[in-house]
């Protein structure tokens, strides 16, 4: 562990650091022990409460919830990406009459809570909950994808477009053949990071009564009794976190792979920008 922020620790500093680690570790362990003790006092660790996970129907319900979550996220992602590309093209159009209204629409969409959009679609258009969730996610994420890809196109050297136009491509062809492929590749880490956000946002479906994972948890707690709320919640939260960490790792892996083969316009997306896309 070498860092320029502090010297390579000598024996004294190493001892202090070790003591600090032990004390800090003990403090964290103590906190955990306290939490576990408090939970134990509530009877969380009674085998009875966790035995429900030996029942097939509990897993089926959780599986249904997970399926509903993943299908909404998958469908939304598949629709939102092409729509985002289209919005991006409109947003950087040469015509002011197209560019400016698109910009206003994008600002509007990005400035609104996703859950409000879902409610709007659900009540305003009287759709099913599934459609409301998917449409809300599509509209919001298409706007975000458009902004990410636009940032990618703007980060390209000017010469790319100039060269495209110089060899006689039309403006549209230059965008499609030269700029977009590079921009999408360059922004891949941000785009994948946004997928994590999209997946997380499906849980907002809970609020508009879509039967996703969290709704399944609530349902089971209502049916089985409040005693089982914590175990079921714990498992569902673990599922969400595991899937999201897997996708986040994928984003990091893509970023590393991209920067290894530096020739093809690397995925050296600004780390700050990547993180900023996240919440």
């Amino acid at each position, binding site marked *: 562990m070498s860092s320029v922020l502090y010297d390579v620790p000598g024996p004294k500093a190493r001892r202090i650091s070790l003591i600090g680690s032990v004390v800090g570790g003990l403090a964290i362990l103590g906190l955990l022990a306290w939490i576990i003790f408090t939970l134990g006092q509530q009877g969380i660790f009674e085998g009875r409460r966790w035995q429900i996970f030996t029942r097939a129907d509990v897993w089926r319900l959780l599986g249904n919830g997970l399926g509903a979550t993943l299908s909404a996220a998958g469908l939304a992602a598949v629709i939102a990406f092409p729509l985002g590309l289209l919005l991006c093209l409109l947003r950087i159009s040469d015509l002011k009459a197209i560019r400016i209204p698109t910009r206003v629409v994008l600002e509007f969409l990005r400035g609104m809570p996703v859950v409000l959009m879902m409610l709007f679609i659900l009540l305003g258009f009287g759709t099913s909950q599934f459609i409301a969730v998917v449409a809300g996610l599509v509209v919001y994420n298409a706007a975000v994808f458009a902004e990410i890809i636009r940032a990618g196109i703007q980060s390209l050297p000017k010469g790319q477009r100039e060269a495209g136009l110089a060899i006689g491509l039309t403006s549209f062809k230059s965008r499609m053949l030269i700029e977009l492929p590079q921009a999408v590749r360059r922004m891949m880490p941000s785009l994948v990071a946004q997928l994590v956000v999209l997946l*997380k946002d499906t849980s907002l479906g809970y609020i508009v009564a879509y039967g996703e994972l969290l709704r399944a948890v609530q349902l089971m707690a209502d049916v089985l009794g409040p005693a089982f709320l914590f175990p079921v919640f714990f498992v569902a939260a673990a599922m969400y976190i595991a899937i999201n960490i897997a996708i986040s790792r994928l984003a990091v892996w893509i970023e590393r792979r991209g920067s290894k083969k530096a020739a093809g316009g690397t995925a050296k997306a600004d780390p700050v920008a990547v993180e900023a896309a996240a919440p």
Partner: protein
Amino acid sequence: MDVIIESLPLYWEGFLRTLFLSAVSGVIALVLGTLLAAARVSPVAALRGFSTVYVEILRNTPLTIAFFFAAIVLPRLGVQFAQFEVAAIIALSSYTAAFIAEAVRSGVNSVPVGQAEAARSIGMNFGQVLNLIILPQALRTVIPPLINILIALVKNSSVAGAFFVLELFGYGRQLANANGDQVITVLLGTAFFYLLLTVPLGILASTVERKVAIAR
């Protein structure tokens, strides 16, 4: 349109509560996030580990789950809140702190190595390097992403509306249910109040970004 004018006091109250939730959670998250970022780069392994685990878990947890935990699971476990606002603030600030920690950490990494080396070479210790040299510079580059995180926080506070806190979204939902025939107007009104917060913040973010870009 009449609906909006009639229920303007409700909108206003909701708006103020959204503002309150966002401001309080924002301040707590900023402090907590900076501490987490400092722990993440510190020499003490236990702090580094704790910070990493915290950020990884919270960043990958849906906000609704965090709210569900704070507002529904915690009371079942014997942690009682006088008001649901407290639960909302706990959920929002602990969730947002993870993102702030990440943003500040990338800011720390964006400060040229030579800065830290120069500070080290004139004999500053870890705390001095961080407080006097790195963080002031890092915070500058980090301000635009931080504002973006705060915009997200304002939007995220809408989730509180579903967990017993009557803020903008909560009132919007109530009004929409009460005025079934004018749902679209009512919800557009709610959207307008959100934009009143998010759009100026967005303009601020891009202005600051341009300023900082010149300075560096």
